[in-house]
């Protein structure tokens, strides 16, 4: 049903139509509206049977999901930022045990300094955890990715993270086609676990594995994720047939044919990027955009096919790999190995810094004119950092930067 609604609410309603049997909930902004709405849906009887469990931490939330999923229940939770990091040990475990848990991550920066606004540092930090990671471009896709995520998770027996930008998407009201129960039921069959805790047929799950087989198990984990490279487009195709709209898939090329310059990005910033691409195309600039929906598994071949013909690639990063630069860029570079082209990593929008059309116009023009370095920070306040850099140069023990900058700003220097 088409309605004007909040992103979180559309996600919660869609998740409810997926009929999860156990939901673990722990609050953290900007994910809270999702679990709040689910709490209401469960309480009102709209979603049953479903156990909605208020837990004492995200570590418990993911642990509870592990138990519930292993016992054969379709299981869901949502988190963000510090919460995701608080779960980390259990995240790896859920993936290693092959449990098809679905989790929404309302992307948010990680402290310190504490910051509740959007970037991708949280989910990107879990890129090697064994979870499949899908990034939504807009709220329509955020909602639509959930039935697909359950399908994928249960087909492969792997956990899936649906990442949606915090606030920018979660708290935005817009017109969203929220699927109906019957549609979702036709698309998503009830959960049939591959392996389940059952007294009539006891299995031991989570045994200790030594050096004689651990590498093999990890190899198979990798092989299984690679299967998702086929399953994701298949499920997206079926979704298009069932719901008559495009959502999901591995990648979203936009005006990439005959493009010299291609901008790679994930998540909600793609909307702005495509607008800028349109405007520059109207001025005759050969520029395109490549949205990556499936960050894990990373679609090396598909990315290579799209980017291989470009002359330069600009990767917009919403997270920073401190000490080296870009996270997505490293994956893009792997995809392009052996192909010579200009590659630029641009760190943008950290901690909720707006990424404006003006800034992107300037950025892309700089890239095309050859004025862009390998690692750039969009809209960096150079005055502020240079003062701090000077202080660092004076003394190796210059103190924490955040505090120094706060003092500067406070004293209006």
């Amino acid at each position: 049903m088409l309605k004007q609604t909040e992103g979180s609410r559309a996600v919660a309603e869609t998740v409810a139509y997926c009929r999860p049997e156990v939901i673990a909930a722990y609050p953290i902004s900007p994910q809270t509206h999702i679990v709040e709405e689910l709490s209401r849906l469960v309480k009102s009887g709209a979603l049953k049977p479903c156990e909605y469990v208020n837990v004492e931490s995200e570590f418990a939330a993911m642990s509870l999901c592990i138990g519930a999923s292993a016992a054969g229940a379709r299981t869901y939770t949502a988190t963000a930022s510090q919460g995701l990091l608080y779960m980390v040990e259990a995240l790896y475990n859920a993936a290693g045990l092959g449990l098809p848990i679905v989790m929404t991550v309302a992307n948010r920066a990680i402290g310190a300094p504490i910051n509740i606004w959007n970037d991708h540092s949280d989910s990107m930090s879990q890129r090697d955890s064994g979870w499949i990671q899908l990034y939504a471009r807009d709220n329509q896709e955020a909602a639509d990715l959930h039935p697909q995520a359950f399908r994928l998770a249960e087909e492969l027996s792997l956990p899936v993270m649906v990442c949606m930008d915090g606030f920018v998407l979660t708290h935005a009201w817009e017109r969203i086609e929220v699927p109906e129960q019957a549609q979702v039921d036709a698309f998503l069959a009830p959960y049939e676990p591959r392996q389940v805790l059952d007294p009539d047929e006891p299995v031991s799950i989570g045994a200790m594995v030594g050096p004689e087989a651990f590498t093999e198990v990890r190899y198979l984990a990798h092989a299984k994720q690679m299967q998702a490279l086929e399953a994701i487009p298949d499920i997206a195709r079926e979704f298009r047939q069932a719901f008559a709209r495009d959502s999901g898939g591995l990648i979203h090329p936009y005006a990439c044919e005959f493009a010299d310059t291609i901008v790679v990005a994930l998540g909600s910033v793609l909307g702005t990027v495509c607008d800028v691409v349109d405007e520059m195309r109207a001025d005759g600039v050969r520029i395109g955009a490549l949205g990556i929906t499936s960050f894990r598994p990373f679609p090396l071949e598909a990315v290579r096919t799209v980017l291989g013909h470009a002359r330069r690639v600009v990767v917009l990063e919403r997270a920073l790999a401190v000490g080296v630069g870009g996270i997505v860029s490293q994956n893009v570079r792997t995809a392009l190995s052996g192909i010579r082209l200009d590659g630029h990593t641009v760190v943008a929008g950290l901690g909720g810094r707006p990424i404006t059309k003006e800034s992107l116009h300037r950025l892309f023009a700089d890239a095309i004119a050859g004025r862009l370095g390998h690692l750039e920070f969009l809209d960096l306040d150079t005055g502020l950092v240079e003062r701090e850099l000077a202080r660092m140069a004076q003394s190796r023990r210059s103190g924490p930067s955040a505090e120094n900058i706060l003092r500067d700003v406070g004293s209006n220097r």
Partner: protein
Amino acid sequence: MNAAQQVKFYQVGSLAAGNRLLDPELRSDQADPARSNALTCGHRACQGCGEALGARYVLDAAQRASGGKVIAVNATGCLEVFSTPYPQTSWQLPWLHSLFGNAPAVASGVAAALRAKGRTDIRVVGQGGDGGTVDIGLGCLSGMFERNDDVLYVCYDNEAYMNTGVQRSGATPPTARTATTQAVGEEPGAPFGQGKSLPLIAMAHEIPYVATATVAGLRDLEAKVHRAMGLRGARYLHVLVPCPLGWGTASCDTVRIARLAEQSGLFPVFEAAGGEVTEVTKIRRRVPVEEYLRPQKRYAHLFTPEVRTDVIARLQRAADRNIARFDLAEEVVS
């Protein structure tokens, strides 16, 4: 699944030998050749491991109490490691291990799934060592208690982190030597005034059932498991399980040492419901703490090179306090 293992008989515990004098329905679960044998022999625990003994009794009793419908969730620790080295498993019931600090929450998840599926016949037992329970898993355990999830959680207390090589835990008693509380200098071993009593913490949550037991009172242990399985909601069982390796005791002495822990008053055995103590096991033959401490190498520094009478007296006072607090002294019939 390997075929069910042939049951072997053991003579264990003070009352087990009297089994054949009892009516069949009153006999120990372990005396029943048809017992479930949840944890088969052939696992890799040390000889005389109290934890292996305790776990076998607990799970067999839990299975009998629920008609064989039990799912076990295990924390990381000796019990997990010695029972499931790939590609083998000693478990003849559905068993799940996730992490060191999350067994109570995982068990809550299993219970939630069963609730959602309307499977009230299947019951959940969570289990871990004292490290997994009183330290790293305490947050999850407290959450499980507070929600009153339908789980029986069992702590096998061997009073240290045995699986990683005998380091102290929050349940290590004062003056015990561990790899991280070495007996060096004036105040030997684990310090006084640290550590925590999880049974008392569990009681503070006012859950339906809390009990302590040892592997010296195996009939009592079975009975407590049956009582716990007869109730719904969060239940907690704290079982003292001597560890020959960590305590420095002979493999054949596990049950004797556990009994001395009871008889000295250092380990009070009781039951509680809704936060109130309802039943205590009186001490039939009280012994001075020294009798309990002497056979254990972890307390050797209290006896050589000289006897630390000051320290032993302090431990005696702790035992006396338990005896008074839980009213453990047998009434004298005059």
